[in-house]
């Protein structure tokens, strides 16, 4: 691999956005994803090559590290920031045929529940895994899920609940969804749930671990 691309991959992996960004400390004062991407384009490296052989490589690395317990969520988020800075320059080249996404995914925390940290992590992992995520936020009523499904008829749906007293909203919502669209797959998650609960309410699966979930989804399509 080209040295420039290698360096760019490192900037993504380590979350070095641009020249000004103070972190990581040991890269202080050096160029970041922003500058290096610009330079790569100037050097006439094709956009696909920059994306696939550098940016994606960096993202993959930080993702792998996270799974091994050698990186944390902030590391992934900061890598995503660096990635975004790079993508600004690549966007024009993908004008017509943008990077193909795996599909649509509607996610939200059910009505009456405001816990969203878990849901946000799932969103992040899905986005990182190449899904177009429509995040409806928290306290999302059944009607809202249904209405959104009309806009994205092929979407998968994911719901989160952290309270024993909002878990049953998942049943209400699943029923409402399956009524208008029996083929839509509905997944549930959140600390107090279980596979048994998912079965009971007629959902299509319970996943405690977002990474395993994304892997499962990729195989499902």
């Amino acid at each position: 691999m080209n040295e420039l691309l290698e360096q760019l991959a490192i900037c993504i992996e380590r979350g070095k956005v641009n020249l000004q960004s103070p972190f990581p400390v040991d890269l202080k004062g050096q160029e970041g994803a922003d500058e290096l991407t610009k330079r790569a384009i100037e050097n006439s490296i094709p956009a696909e090559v920059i994306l696939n052989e550098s940016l994606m490589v960096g993202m993959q690395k930080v993702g792998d590290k996270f799974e091994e317990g050698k990186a944390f969520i902030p590391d992934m988020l900061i890598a995503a920031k660096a990635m975004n800075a790079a993508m600004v320059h690549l966007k024009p080249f993908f004008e017509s045929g943008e990077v193909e996404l795996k599909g649509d995914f509607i996610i939200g925390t059910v009505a009456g529940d405001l816990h969203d940290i878990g849901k946000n992590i799932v969103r992040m992992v899905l986005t990182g895994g190449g899904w177009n995520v429509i995040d409806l936020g928290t306290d999302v009523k059944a009607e809202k899920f249904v209405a959104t499904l009309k806009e994205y008829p092929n979407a998968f749906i994911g719901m989160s609940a952290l309270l024993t007293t909002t878990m049953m909203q998942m049943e209400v919502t699943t029923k409402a969804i399956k009524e208008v669209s029996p083929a839509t797959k509905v997944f549930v998650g959140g600390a107090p749930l279980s596979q048994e609960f998912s079965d009971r309410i007629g959902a299509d699966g319970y996943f405690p671990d977002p990474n395993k979930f994304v892997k499962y989804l990729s195989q499902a399509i």
Partner: protein
Amino acid sequence: MKKFTKIAISNEEDLIMGKSLFPVTCGNNLTIGAGKVYPEINFTLPTMMITKETIPEVKKHYSEIMDNILNRSKILNIPGLVVEFEQLPPMTDVPEWGAEITELIKKELDKFYVETGIPNALRVTVLDLRDADHPPLLRTGIASEKTISGFELCAQAGADILSIESVGGKEVHDQALMYGDLHGIAASLGILSYRDMGWLWDNITSIAKKYGCITGGDTACGFSNTAMQLAGQGMLPNILAAIDRAASAPRSLAAFEHGAIGPSKDCAYEGPIIKAITGYPISMEGKSSCCAHFSPLGNIAAAAADLWSNESVQNIRLLSGTAPEAFMELLAYDCRLFNKAIESNNALELRNLMVESDVEHSVEALILEPNVVIEIAKAIVNKESGYEKTKAAIETAYNSIDVSLSNNKISLSNTEIEWMKKIEEEISAFSKTEEEAVEYLEMMYGTFFSSQAYGL
């Protein structure tokens, strides 16, 4: 506003279970923090909905829970008891429901006192509804009105102690935490949360005065316990969670600056810092709350506890009986041990064993080590503003971790060590003034919060 300019407990040997400088008497003749540790039992509903139709069933659950825990309390001959009724969203959303359940529980406690003579009190924790709006309005709007009216109605219905897990500043802290942005953490806790706590606790205090209730205290649950959970799942560095804990102490202290007198809330693991500063009694939870969440603080949490809690457990059946009754038994035995140690002048030894047993395993436990607690407490009282206090708490916590690392008292993974460097760097780049810090928040997280909500 009450200012704490020096710490109440400066000798680490006095920061100990069952003993506070200003015991609190409440409910049916219960005095907390005067030489005994009492169980604070907590419980919640099993999987079910709360609607007008299910309210009778909801009440049946609370009655059953009360029957069971009071039966067990009597059999085990406990010296005193706090029952916490922690509301679920619909119970504050329709504050009358919360008040009705409060009344039901209070009646049971009164009857129990007459029958057994066992002192007791009821803590009601109203739900902070104010984060339903985006951005949260906090001081205005229907969610804010309902939250305040929840306090009013529950106070009237018989609550002895008022508490809340308040959420001001959380909308920003959540973001900063996910990015590991320590500056954002410091500013959201030290400025936003700290200001909201002042406003909120002035309100709670005046309601408490009106009805003769005790102002228990608040908790940084949505802040540092979230960080602890995430660190526990490998999503955040443990040192970040440890430092977030210290950073949240000034925010929780604000309740006491604005009228709270303890017992502070169980899930406020920053409690020992509050106790050192104020001398008021605290409630804590540790291994006994394994039903509600995992933690690296199972034993050390008891070091300075005046109440010992299980945080929460659903009303479901275990093999022995219902889960609330089972955890009542667990708390009762832990408290027996603590009280026997106090009675026989062995509390300090027991405390030290509990402290040491956890510190060697966890940097989050290190922050609760009595000497570290006192250092952080001192750093906090030396500073003027909420932001200054928060920065000082962070710096002190960081230094303690650093020293313990050099001493090989604790060890950290390489991934965590990387973060130590990052944090050191961030600390040195903190905004000097509160104004600059607010500017930083607006630049980074401007879409998430509203300045007016904080009177900024």
